[in-house]
C-alpha cells in the first residue's frame, strides 16, 4: 500500500475561486463537514483577475432593468443555446447574491444616492455590472475568503487533485497531493463539487494562468460524467499584444464600457461595419449617436440613444478584429487599437480603470490616458464544461457537482461579460446546497478502493522513473501552439482533423514524460500531471468543434460560415464510452412560452 494521509468529509470542494468559496460557505452553513482544496494559496484563484464586474439586474443605475431583460440579454448573447432554466435562475438570483456580498462586507462603487453602482458592458441592455473600479474580482474573492475562514471547514492550500474515485455509479473521493511536501492525501468524500475553472492554458495566447488546465472537465469525463458545449471557447477581444512576453493578458471590457473605441491602422472606427442583423436595432448607426450614448451614461443619465458598436458581444468583436488584421488594417504587432484617451479625461481613466492604467504603464510603457492600447483576441473562457442539472448543479455522475466556469449551460455559445462573476455566486451557492442535500438524502458511503488509490499514486509517480523521457515544458508548448493554430478563433474541418491526429501523438508522448528533482514543490512534475487534463480537455474541444458544422458564438468555422438552423436545435455532449471519447447531439427542449415571450419581446 502506498503512503498517504486520509481525510473524511461530507463535501469536498475542489477549487477556491468565487464558485468554490461560495459552495464551501453554503455547504458549511448547512452543517456539512466541508473540505476545500486549491491549487494555489487562498485568494489567488482566477476570480482575483476578473476586472469589469458582476452582472445583476438590480436596476440601481437604470430603473428599466429587470431579471427579464437580463434573461433575454443572456439568451441572445448565448445565441439561444443556453440552458434556459439556468439563465432564468441566474437572472433572478444574481441581485440577491450581490446584496449578500455587501452584507458580508464588500464595498462596491456607489451611485450618487449611495447604492451599488452599475456599469455598462457588452451585450447588456442596461448598466448592470456591480463593480469596484476594475478590480471587482479581487473584492469578491477577498470577501468570500474572509467569510469562509470564519466558518467550520478544512482548507488545504496548494493541494492539487489528480484523480476522482467512484464506487459503483457514485463518487466517493479524490486523490490529491500537497506541493510543500509532495505528500498524497486521500479524501473520502460523500460528494465532490468541482469548481476548477477553465482550460485556457491549452492555448498559446491566453489570459489564463498556469492553474487553468481543464482539470475539472477532464476529471469529470474520466469519472464518466458528460461534458457539454465544449466547442465554445471565448476569445476575449481585448488582450494585450505587445510586448510579446505579456501577449494575452486581459484588457477589461470595462474600457469599452467606459467609452473606449476600437480603431484600425487607418484610424477608422471599424465596428460599425460588423453589426450583425440580430443586433441592428440595438446598436448606434453613427459615431455621433454612439458618442451621445457615452456622454449620457457617464453623466448618470438614462440613455436615450443606442449603444456604441464596441459593446457588441465578445464573439462578434473578436472576429471583427481578426478580420481587420487579416485584411491588412491591423497594428504593427498584429492587433488593433483601443482608445480611451480621446474619450475620457485622464482623471476619469485613472479612477475608473486604475489597474489598466497601471498594467500598461508598467508592462508596455504605454500611458493609456494619452495613447491608444494595442490589443487582440486572447483565449479567455470556456462556455462548455460539465453537464449539470440546472437547479442542483449535479453532473450525470451521482455525487459529483460542478459550478462556475467548469459547469456548462448558463452561457450557451457565448458568455456575456459580467455574467461569470454572478455565475460563481449564484451557482456556487446552488452547488453547495445541492451537494449537502444529496448527502442528507442518499446517505452515500465514501469507501474508496485501496487498489484504485495505489494505481492513481503509481500513475502520478511514474514520470520520476522515466530517465530519458520528454520534457513536460516542451510538450506543453507544442500542445499550445497546435491548439492555437488548429482549434483557435477560426476553425475548419481539415485543421480540426489534423488536431485530432496531433492529439493522438501527444497522448502517446505524454506517457513517456520525464521529471527531475524531488516531489517537493516541483513545477515540472506538476505540469506533467496537468498535461493529462489539458490533453483530455483539448480533445473534447476539438471533437465538439468538428461536429458543429456552423459558426455560432465562440465557435467559428471558415468552412461553415453563419448559423445553421439545424444546429440551433442541439447541444453537443462529450461522453465517455468505455474510455473512448464520443460526441453526441442532444436535442434541446423548447423554451416554455413565458420565457419564449421574454426573448421575443425585444
Amino acid at each position, binding site marked *: 500500500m502506498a503512503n498517504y494521509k486520509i481525510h473524511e468529509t461530507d463535501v469536498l470542494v475542489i477549487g477556491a475561486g468565487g464558485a468554490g468559496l461560495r459552495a464551501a460557505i453554503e455547504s458549511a452553513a448547512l452543517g456539512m463537514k466541508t473540505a476545500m482544496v486549491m491549487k*494555489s*494559496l*487562498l*485568494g*489567488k484563484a*482566477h476570480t*482575483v*483577475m476578473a476586472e469589469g464586474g458582476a452582472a445583476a439586474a438590480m436596476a440601481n443605475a437604470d430603473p428599466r432593468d429587470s431579471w427579464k431583460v437580463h434573461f433575454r440579454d443572456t439568451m441572445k448573447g448565448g445565441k439561444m443555446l443556453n440552458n434556459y432554466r439556468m439563465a432564468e435562475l441566474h437572472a433572478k438570483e444574481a441581485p440577491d447574491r450581490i446584496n449578500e456580498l*455587501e*452584507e*458580508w*462586507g464588500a*464595498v*462596491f*462603487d*456607489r451611485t*450618487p*444616492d*449611495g*447604492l451599488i453602482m452599475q456599469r455598462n458592458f457588452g451585450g447588456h441592455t442596461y448598466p448592470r455590472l456591480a463593480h*469596484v473600479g476594475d*478590480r471587482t474580482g*479581487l*473584492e469578491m474573492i*477577498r470577501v468570500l475568503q*474572509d467569510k469562509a*475562514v*470564519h466558518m467550520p471547514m478544512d482548507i488545504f*492550500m496548494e493541494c492539487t487533485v489528480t484523480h476522482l474515485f467512484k464506487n459503483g455509479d457514485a463518487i466517493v473521493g479524490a486523490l490529491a497531493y500537497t506541493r*510543500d511536501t509532495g505528500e498524497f492525501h486521500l479524501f473520502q468524500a460523500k460528494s465532490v463539487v468541482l469548481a476548477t475553472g477553465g482550460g485556457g492554458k491549452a492555448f498559446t495566447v491566453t489570459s489564463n*494562468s*498556469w*492553474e487553468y488546465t481543464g482539470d475539472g472537465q477532464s476529471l469529470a469525463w474520466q469519472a464518466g460524467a458528460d461534458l457539454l458545449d465544449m466547442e465554445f471557447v471565448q476569445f476575449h477581444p481585448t488582450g494585450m499584444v*505587445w*510586448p*510579446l*512576453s*505579456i501577449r494575452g*493578458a*486581459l484588457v477589461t471590457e470595462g474600457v469599452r464600457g467606459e467609452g473606449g473605441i476600437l480603431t484600425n491602422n487607418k484610424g477608422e472606427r471599424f465596428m460599425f461595419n460588423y453589426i450583425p442583423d440580430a443586433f441592428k436595432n440595438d446598436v448606434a448607426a453613427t459615431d455621433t449617436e454612439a458618442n451621445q450614448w457615452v456622454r449620457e451614461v457617464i453623466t448618470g443619465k438614462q440613455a436615450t440613444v443606442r449603444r456604441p458598436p464596441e459593446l457588441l458581444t465578445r464573439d462578434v468583436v473578436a472576429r471583427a478584429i481578426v478580420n481587420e488584421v487579416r485584411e491588412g488594417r491591423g497594428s504593427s504587432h498584429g492587433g488593433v487599437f483601443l482608445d480611451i484617451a480621446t474619450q475620457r479625461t485622464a482623471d476619469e481613466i485613472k479612477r475608473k480603470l486604475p*489597474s489598466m492604467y*497601471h*498594467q500598461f504603464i*508598467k*508592462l*508596455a510603457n504605454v500611458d493609456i490616458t494619452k495613447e491608444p492600447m494595442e490589443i487582440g483576441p486572447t483565449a479567455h473562457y470556456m462556455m462548455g464544461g460539465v453537464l449539470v442539472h440546472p437547479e442542483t448543479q449535479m453532473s450525470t455522475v451521482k455525487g459529483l457537482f460542478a459550478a462556475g466556469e467548469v459547469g456548462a449551460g448558463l452561457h450557451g455559445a457565448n458568455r456575456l461579460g459580467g455574467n461569470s462573476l454572478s455565475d460563481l455566486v449564484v451557482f456556487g451557492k446552488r452547488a453547495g446546497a445541492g451537494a449537502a442535500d444529496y448527502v442528507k438524502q442518499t446517505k452515500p458511503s465514501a469507501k474508496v478502493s485501496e487498489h484504485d488509490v495505489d494505481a492513481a499514486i503509481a500513475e502520478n509517480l511514474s514520470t520520476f522513473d522515466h530517465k530519458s523521457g520528454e*520534457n*513536460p*515544458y516542451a510538450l506543453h*508548448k507544442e500542445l499550445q501552439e497546435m491548439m492555437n493554430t488548429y482549434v483557435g478563433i477560426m476553425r475548419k474541418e481539415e485543421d480540426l482533423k489534423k488536431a485530432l491526429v496531433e492529439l493522438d501523438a501527444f497522448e502517446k508522448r505524454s506517457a513517456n514524460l520525464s*521529471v*527531475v*528533482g*524531488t516531489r*517537493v*514543490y*516541483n*513545477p*515540472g*512534475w506538476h505540469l506533467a500531471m496537468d498535461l493529462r487534463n489539458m490533453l483530455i480537455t483539448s480533445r473534447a474541444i476539438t471533437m465538439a468543434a468538428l461536429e458543429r458544422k456552423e459558426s455560432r458564438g465562440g465557435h467559428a468555422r471558415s468552412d461553415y460560415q453563419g448559423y445553421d438552423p439545424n444546429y440551433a436545435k442541439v447541444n453537443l455532449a462529450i461522453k465517455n464510452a468505455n474510455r473512448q471519447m464520443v460526441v453526441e447531439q442532444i436535442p434541446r427542449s423548447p423554451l416554455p412560452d413565458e420565457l419564449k415571450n421574454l426573448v421575443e419581446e425585444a
Partner: protein
Amino acid sequence: MSNNVHMRVFRGDQTGGGFKDYQVQADEGMVVLDVIHRIQAEQAPDLSCRWNCKAGKCGSCSAEVNGKPKLMCMTRMDTFTPGQTITVEPIKTFPLIKDLVTDVSWNFQVNKKIPPFKPRPKNPDGTWRMMQYEADRVQEFRKCIECFLCQDVCHVLRNHGKHEDFFGPRFMVRLASLEMHPLDAADRLKLIKEIGGIGFCNITKCCTEVCPEDIHITDNAIIPLKERVADRFYDPLTRLFRIFAGGGQK
C-alpha cells in the same frame, strides 16, 4: 531585440542551498518572472516559484530581486543596466520551502484572528446607503493583493521575528479596511492594541515603500489606527469618563 542575461537564482530548501548561475536569453518587454519561467522550461524544470496572474493582480510572485522586495511579474528586465547580474531570492521573513517559495501560512493564521465584518442594521428602506466618498477611504485598503512584501520588509517581523506579538502591516491594512468600513459595527480596538500589537510599529514606512498597490499603509491605515487606540486607551479624559460612567475598558 533580445540579449543574454546573467541570473543568480537561489536554489535550496531548509537543509541548505545557495545561488546558482544561469545564462538566459531575455526578449524585449520581458519581466523577471518570464526569465524565471524560461529557466524552468529550458534549464531547471524543478525550479520552484509561485505565480498566477502575471499582471500584478494576485500577489503570488513576491521575491527579492537584487535585494529589493518585488513582484517578479511587474519587474521589467530593461530596468536593469545591461550586463548587470540579477539576483533573485525568496522573501526572507518567512520560512523557506524550496528555491523561491516560502511558507506564508502564518499570514493566513493571523487573518483568522480578525473578527469578521459585522454590518450595522439596514435602513428602513431595506438598503445600506454609502456614499462614494465614504467608500473611497476603505477602497484604498481593499486594493491589497496579499503579496506580503510589506510583511517581508517590516523590521518587527524580519529582524526581530515578533510574529507572535505583531500582526504586521498587511493585517493593519485589513483591520483598517474593517474599522473604517462605513457599514461595520464591530469593535476591534482592543484586539488591535493587545493581540495585533500595533504599538510595535514605529512608523519607518518601509512597508509603504514596497507596496505594489501604492497603499499608504503607514499614513492612512496604521497611524489612524494608532490614534484610535490612543484615544480609547490612553486619553485621560476618556478614561476618567469611563470610570464615572461605570463602564470597564472595552
